[in-house]
């Protein structure tokens, strides 16, 4: 079966009509993943027990929409009994003894965990090149990155290995790879989804989200994973709507704000061209599109890299070689055990972030960096909130360029950080945001970013759905995979 042409709903129908069993879906899925692995490297660990779990679902009978549907998980989401590495050497042998809430919720809905996807180490990066397990590649062009940090999840969906995958997004890690792979990806409002069992990077920014070819599939999955969790006190008690059932492509009267600062001087003309076409399509559908200003956007990267690195330096203190993960050998004392385990276990990018964060939090730098960044964050949140008082949605490009070449930016951290300028705003303000395919430029996908009001994921889904139904991008087959099927 060609998963690229399927949706959660079409697979569900086939399962209900007994055209296929859940066990067959899982077995075929694993086969497909293994066949692609040498080229794409999208997974760190596949779950060979998936067919067994699927068989149990077959025996119980297919129930809800996700019953028997294989789903992939970014490998920073802990899964009981399945190795979870966060793409780091420091967790190369880590076997969780409990599962993340998002996994438990999906399993309760009958979904099958097919495996764990590649990412940048501890989700720190925009290309998967910082993974200890090697870079994933882009199914549209094997010489290019799939983006990151949820690059494995994005490439797995684009290549038809799964219909949907979970990712996490701290500064754009769902939306940027979604854009680079020509798929849909949504980062919900901060607090919409429990972070219990998600390996922490920056706790005031991290959020779990969904990636799929079709908007409606992410809508189905998000309704299942969202909601309050007593294990995560930042998870919201707000009711979770049925996003899928409420999907509407009616854009008449919807007010769209386009921040002029999103038309960043460094943004590739092909990106702007495709985004402008998408905005024209919305106008034709009856939406109004107006220019606004977010004057503090120019400081977003600075604020983000100070806050995210500071939170990371604190969160990553726990990796010390004592209770789990990599432990350095031949050490004289416990201090050396800490230092050597961390220095040998973390990759360069993770060390860089820990150093940046430790610096920003250190005596003498705290006020000028950490506190200052937290204050500018307040100003920035106010600017975003003010725009969303008058407008339903904020739109712009998801990325400044299409997927870049493997190796192109890996030695220039600052250039890599600037990639995130368009996606960071939604994380700093905790807003729901998605990337939806807007078109192709020279064979590479371009994403439109849609940012909504807090807890109004529905408006984001609806706008994305309207564009999807207009351009039917999901019918396109990733260029580099053509002729291989």
């Amino acid at each position, binding site marked *: 079966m060609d998963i690229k042409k399927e949706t959660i709903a079409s697979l569900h129908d086939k399962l209900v009509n007994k055209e296929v069993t859940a066990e067959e879906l899982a077995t075929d899925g694993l086969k497909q993943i293994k066949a692609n692995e040498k080229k794409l490297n999208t997974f760190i660990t596949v779950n060979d027990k998936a067919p067994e779990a699927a068989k149990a679902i077959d025996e119980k009978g297919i129930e809800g929409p996700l019953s028997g549907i294989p789903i992939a998980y970014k490998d920073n989401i802990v899964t009981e009994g399945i190795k979870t590495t966060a793409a780091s050497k420091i967790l190369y042998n880590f076997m969780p003894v409990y599962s993340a809430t998002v996994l438990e919720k999906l399993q309760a809905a009958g979904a099958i965990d097919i495996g764990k996807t590649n990412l940048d180490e501890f989700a720190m990066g925009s290309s998967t090149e910082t993974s200890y397990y090697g870079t994933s590649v882009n199914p549209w062009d094997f010489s290019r990155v799939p983006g990151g940090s949820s690059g494995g999840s994005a490439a797995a969906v684009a290549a038809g290995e799964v219909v949907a995958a979970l990712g996490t997004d701290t500064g754009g890690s769902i939306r940027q790879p979604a854009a680079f792979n020509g798929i849909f990806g949504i980062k919900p409002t901060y607090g919409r989804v429990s972070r219990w069992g998600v390996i922490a990077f920056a706790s005031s920014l991290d959020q779990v989200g969904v990636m799929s070819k079709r908007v409606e599939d992410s809508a189905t999955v998000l309704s299942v994973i969202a909601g309050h969790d007593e294990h995560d006190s930042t998870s919201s008690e707000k009711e979770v709507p049925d996003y899928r059932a409420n999907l509407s492509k009616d854009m008449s009267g919807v007010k769209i704000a386009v921040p002029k600062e999103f038309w960043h001087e460094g943004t590739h003309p092909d990106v702007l061209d495709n985004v402008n076409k998408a905005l024209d399509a919305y106008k034709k559908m009856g939406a109004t599109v107006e220019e606004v200003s977010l004057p503090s956007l120019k400081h977003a990267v600075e604020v983000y890299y100070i806050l995210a690195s500071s939170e990371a330096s604190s969160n990553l203190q726990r990796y010390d070689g004592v209770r*789990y993960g990599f432990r350095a050998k031949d050490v004289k004392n416990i201090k050396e055990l800490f230092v050597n385990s961390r220095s040998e276990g973390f990759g360069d990018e993770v060390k860089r972030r820990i150093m940046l964060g*430790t*610096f920003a939090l250190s005596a003498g730098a705290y006020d000028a960096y950490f506190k200052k960044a937290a204050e500018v964050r307040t100003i920035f949140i106010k600017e975003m909130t003010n725009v969303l008082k008058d407008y339903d949605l904020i739109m712009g490009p998801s990325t400044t360029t299409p997927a870049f070449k493997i190796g192109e930016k890996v030695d220039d951290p600052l250039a890599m950080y600037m990639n995130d300028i368009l996606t960071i705003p939604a994380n700093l303000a905790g807003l729901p945001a998605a990337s939806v395919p807007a078109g192709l430029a020279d064979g590479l996908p371009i994403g439109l970013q849609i940012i909504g009001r807090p807890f109004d994921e529905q408006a984001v889904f609806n706008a994305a759905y309207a564009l999807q139904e207009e351009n039917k991008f999901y019918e396109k087959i990733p260029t580099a995979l053509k002729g291989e099927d």
Partner: protein
Amino acid sequence: MISKDEILHVAALANLKFQDDEVDSFVNQLDKIVNMESKLSSVDTTGIKPTYNMGDTNTVFREDKGVHTQTREQMLENVPEVDNNLIKVPTIVDKEDDE
């Protein structure tokens, strides 16, 4: 400009060490990044409260009741060295002087 000494001080705070041949390129990269971050000093934040966390900041209460989740055996499953059902670590006090 960040000095090599400052970088080594921060590394010590973070329980990290760098090989001699790595330090210079690290100093150079971090200096560029910190320089970029320093642009924030131009923003007037007089009277602005910092945002340190997101979501509802209301204190969440629960009943003061212990809940058993993992067993001792499970908690020890990932420990690199276990001795007698305890986590084994190297000596806390530096042995170097005795050797």
